[in-house]
């Protein structure tokens, strides 16, 4: 069952709003990036911001799983409160940690709306999940990486799976945007994503490891990576002011 859910979360046909985002590719193209440079762009994101996102997704997934497991062990519906409380506090702390790693207002707005779209779908994937419900109410930001991890955990996926999906989606989303922005063959961009598979797998393992090192929640958040690409942040600011854009971000 988790294998199918995993596919579903990776599927761009699942209505979570990703089609309107280029993960910074559109502003990069506006600044002169050529089709042949898309693989380098994909790699740069994977090693930096996508790796951060994946690590946060893995950490949020671990928190959601711990609360889910604890809940299963409890005999009454009321007794799970403490586990959900703890997991909720951990997710909200992850929000803050990720905010510190997301300096640009446009990116903050983009991951917020993507996170909210994913929560909308999650309300059907994990109906009545107390943690997701309370997080949606309590989080002022609902950034996608944290939401993604929490949804993955609530639906039974592992932190490694959450990290892998998060990394894959970053690359696949850019590849999909690339064929709309540049004269590229979609078969070519698909092959580029496939070519990154070994690196995605290695980074996923590393992201899951950093998420594990950051536990217990709050104690070791320094273990979560803070790699960034300042040029993406700068261009996102210019993109927000552009009047000729196709993609939100």
């Amino acid at each position, binding site marked *: 069952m988790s294998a199918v859910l995993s596919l579903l979360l990776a599927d761009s046909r699942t*209505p*979570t709003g990703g089609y*309107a985002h280029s993960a910074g590719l559109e502003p990069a193209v506006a600044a002169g990036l050529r089709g042949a440079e898309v693989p380098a762009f994909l790699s740069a994101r994977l090693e930096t911001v996508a790796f951060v996102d994946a690590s946060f997704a893995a950490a949020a997934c671990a928190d959601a799983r711990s609360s889910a497991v604890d809940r299963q062990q409890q005999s009454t519906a009321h007794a799970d409160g403490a586990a959900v409380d703890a997991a909720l506090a951990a997710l909200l702390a992850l929000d803050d940690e990720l905010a510190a790693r997301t300096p640009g207002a446009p990116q903050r707005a983009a991951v917020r709306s993507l996170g909210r*779209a994913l929560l909308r779908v999650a*309300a059907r994937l994990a109906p*009545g999940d107390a943690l997701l419900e309370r997080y949606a109410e309590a989080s002022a930001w609902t950034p996608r990486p944290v939401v993604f991890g929490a949804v993955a955990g609530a639906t039974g996926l592992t932190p490694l799976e959450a990290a892998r999906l998060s990394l894959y989606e970053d690359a696949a989303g850019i590849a999909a*945007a690339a064929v709309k922005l540049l004269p590229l063959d979609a078969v070519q961009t698909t092959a580029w994503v496939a070519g990154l598979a070994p690196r995605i797998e290695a980074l996923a393992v590393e992201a899951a490891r950093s998420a594990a090192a950051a536990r217990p929640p709050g104690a070791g958040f320094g273990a979560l990576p803070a790699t960034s690409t300042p040029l993406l942040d700068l261009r996102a600011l210019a993109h927000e002011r552009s009047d000729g854009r*196709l*993609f*939100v971000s």
Partner: protein
Amino acid sequence: MSAETTYGTIRADGPPRARRALRVGIGGPVGTGKSSLIAALCRCLGSELQLGVVTNDIYTTEDAIFLRSQGVLPAERIVAVQTGCCPHTAIRDDVSANLEAVEELERAHGPLAVVFVESGGDNLTAAFSPALADTQIFVLDTAGGDDVPRKGGPGVARSDLLVINKVDLAPRVGSDVARMLRDSAERRDGRPTLPVSLREPDGVREVAAWVLDQEERWRAGTLVSEDPGPPAPHGPHDHDHDLHPHAHDDGHAHAHVHAH
């Protein structure tokens, strides 16, 4: 968990009807006058109803800027959503960005009576999801060719209201309005079609009356929208909506207002 608080303000089914605005989708090909129609509706209804507008521009914020420049609504009640080359997806397959924009608008400026969601100009197969629009208007114009109603598509055949715009231009572009209305009637199985000229001082009156009627039904909980369904090839006499029967609690499938 109570159904009302499922995931805070993010609900799979949206907030309860009575507590949110009627969402009117406005679709149709590029250049048929969707933005102008919305501007005219806002001008006509703005003093009577609290309104909001979400636009889905293809490449710019042109439509939102145009509407703000018309001064028909406070600028902050008109918001633009980018659709990443996919105007069709944004109103049908994945409405999350538009839904979010509508909900934010209502949160920030509510309570609103009606929110218009303007699709980025698309082709004849575009149609709003019932998850986004409670009722929808499809806009064609005489300048796009008088054979368009005959070509059909979900918007032409099953939108809640079909508007044939720019009828004042018909003689100049060689279009036969009577033919367009006849073909529309044949496609639409009794659903209303209105010929409109926004150049006339009172040109939007009938469309505005239709919107008011829909809003009243919405508040009363009796509005039943036709879902245009996915694009499907069909002739004028294939009533393929019959293949997708709508189940309603009261067993009453179609409650449509007809053009006066």
